[in-house]
């Protein structure tokens, strides 16, 4: 369904992403992992057409997304990394804005928004300005905005950030269910446990390059670690956590 072919992005002369290639099929949930600065957000922005790659292409059903970006964006739902919303709009007003800009028919839009607000426990505060929302509430607004138009592809950048336990449980279950319905989900996160439970496939980045990609079970077997944490540590992390811990403790003790 969605293919990234040798995606490369340079900022000035600094490479942020280099030759990233992977495929996301319908019904797959692809977990994208990597330490800070590994190129996850840049990859996400190229996938949704916000950034133009310096080299390489993103294909949707075999067509370059840049050929008809507007049609492509109509079938993509996106949750950005930061819940940077308009603080003076209410949650409902924001969702209405997104729905109208997506060209959704208006009579049904209002009902759909109200139902989703109720299901995400935001109905009581739907008319309050989002300035007064907690981080979790804003994140839920973003999730509703991404799901509102029943997208075929979902691109989620840290979607659990700030969510409370029950909302997180609902979202994890929802992502699995969306995958079963045939949606393609690209899931970026730092939380290894969630990726391990939710994602069927993995893409691990380091310094802008793909370290490994494929079905999660295959990768773990190949690396020889039963847990994703072990696999990730083996592939990505240069540091010895025990050694760094000892050094931090030493520094803290100095008066």
């Amino acid at each position: 369904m969605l293919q990234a072919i040798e995606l490369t992005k340079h900022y000035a002369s600094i490479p942020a992403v280099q030759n990233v290639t992977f495929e996301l099929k319908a019904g797959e949930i692809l977990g994208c992992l990597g330490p800070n600065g590994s190129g996850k957000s840049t990859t996400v922005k190229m996938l949704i057409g916000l950034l133009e790659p310096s080299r390489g292409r993103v294909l949707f059903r075999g067509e370059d997304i840049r050929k008809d970006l507007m049609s492509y964006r109509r079938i993509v739902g996106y949750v950005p990394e930061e819940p940077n919303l308009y603080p003076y709009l209410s949650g409902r007003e924001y969702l209405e804005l997104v729905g109208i800009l997506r060209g959704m028919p208006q009579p049904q839009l209002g009902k759909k928004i109200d139902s989703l607000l109720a299901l995400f426990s935001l109905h009581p505060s739907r008319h309050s300005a989002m300035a007064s929302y907690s981080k979790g509430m804003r994140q839920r607004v973003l999730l509703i905005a991404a799901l509102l138009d029943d997208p075929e592809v979902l691109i989620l950048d840290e979607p659990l950030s700030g969510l409370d336990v029950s909302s997180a449980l609902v979202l994890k279950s929802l992502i699995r269910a969306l995958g079963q319905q045939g949606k393609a989900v690209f899931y970026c996160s730092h939380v290894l446990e969630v990726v391990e439970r939710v994602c069927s496939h993995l893409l691990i980045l380091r310094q802008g390059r793909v370290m490994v990609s494929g079905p999660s079970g295959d990768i773990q077997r190949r690396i020889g670690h039963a847990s994703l944490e072990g696999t990730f540590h083996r592939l990505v992390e240069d540091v010895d956590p025990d050694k760094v811990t000892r050094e931090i403790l030493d520094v803290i003790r100095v008066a």
Partner: protein
Amino acid sequence: MTSRLWFANKWEAYARKPFPLLVRLSINRIFRGSNADEEEGLNLNIGLLLALLAVPGGFISIFLFDKYGSFLQWLRGQTNFDPLTAALPDEYFFIVLSMVVTGGVGVWWWDSIFPDRRDFTNLGHLPIPTARIFVANSVAILVLTCICAIDVNGASSILFPLIVGASQLRFSFMAQFAGVHALVVVLASIFSFLAVFATAGLLMLLLPYAVFRRISLYARSLIAASLVAMLSTSFAVPRMLLDLPRSTHSSLRLLPSAWFLGFCQLLRGRADPVLAELGHVAMFALVSASAVAAAAYTLAYRRCFVRLPELADAPPGRLGARSSWVFHLLDLFVFRTPFQRAGYRFVIKTLFRNEAHALALGGFLALGAVFASQALFSAFNGKGIPDFPTSNVLSIPLILGYCMLLGIRFVFDIPAPLRANWIFRFLLDDSVHESAALVRRVILCLVSPWIFLVALPIYLHFWGWTVGLFHIVLVTVWLALLTEVLLVGFRKFPFTCTYPSFEPSAVIAVIASVLGYFAFTAMTSQLESEALATPVAGGVFLVMSFGVWYAVHRVRKSVVETDQHLIFEDSPAAHFELLRLTDGG
């Protein structure tokens, strides 16, 4: 269905279409500011702001009734009163006022004219062409410019012609006068806004983004200072314009406000050749500003909006750490406690890095610079340096010091992002704090270099040791006393407290600041000038200084202990207190 209801329904249906929604979103962003903090901003709504912008023109028109009232003219014996000649200085003043207010609004909206990261995050991934966002933003700017221009000049366009035309019997005179006045001030407003807008666009276009961000603050301060300077010319320029035909190279020809006065006189058919020429310059300038603003905006928009995600992902820049030795030096001699040391670093970095604070302080300094330059010009006025300093010469450091101190005190009340103030709430003991001592020392560090490194050598060089030392000692003592007056009741860690609520006392504070300015600068310098001539008069200063110090001391003594605690929320004091007389037996 009535036609009104039909129209309302049609309008509602239209307003919910994508394009009007985008326009509304852009208007909101421009009005509220792109980097507006979410809960802590000054919550001015559009209605309130428009009302505030309309007030000066309305009030000033009413004050002019005294000048144009036919009965009052008769009492004064003015029988040959030509309203058009008499209205020239006032017309000039209204042109300047409209340009300053609208230009000020342009400076205020400087950062929000272009879509920001928030717009990009929320709109960039939606199926809307970038061109539509561009057009919506352009329409929003156009709408706001027109609303602002009409609002700023609305009251004066009605009241001023009414007052000027009151002595005339013909209605056509009033209608013609009103039409020309309204057209000229609205065009002057639009020119001013577009000029600011074009400057922002050109800077963004020509400079690398990081450099643009860095100099943006200075450019805004410079424009704000120029606007204040233009306002201060409004009383002198009309008189000087009468001499314009005789001086071919006068710098007055470069003043945009003079161009629009020329345009006004051209439309009234009363322009001499020089004013007519200036009137043509006004039209040319308006067209040029519109063209440059449109071109710069279009090109800068593409650069700004399309590159936003790249800028967000680019490696972060470094803040300079070159001044670290200064902090070490000050730690040794001025800031002796951890509270003061941490506070000074925080205050200085916030003052120079946070745009809102730097702009507000820059505004006060610009005001000081304008007043000081006026004093300087009236002191010399084409003459050489006098043997004995006049009161105008003596007032310059006092003017600069007053504006600086008032500015510093004012900006300390503007909160930096309040979400970050938890660290101070968490770490500081609210009953044992040194906020006043901290602010006193910060003021000392900011003001003393100007006094001792700039003012002192100048006065010593031109007027010798006695005058120089006496003047600098007096300025220092006076500024120290002013600091104490400004710090009465101060119990905040700078920038960490919510905005003070707007109370009637705010109006009194503004009036007191204006009166204080005259007392502090004009009266003091006059007295000092006399004291330099007759040293016995110097005793007056001793008595006055002691009086002020004692008053401050008494007020401090009368403050109860709970009112000395450090605060992070500036809420008004309760009007009544419940005395639980039965509690505790």
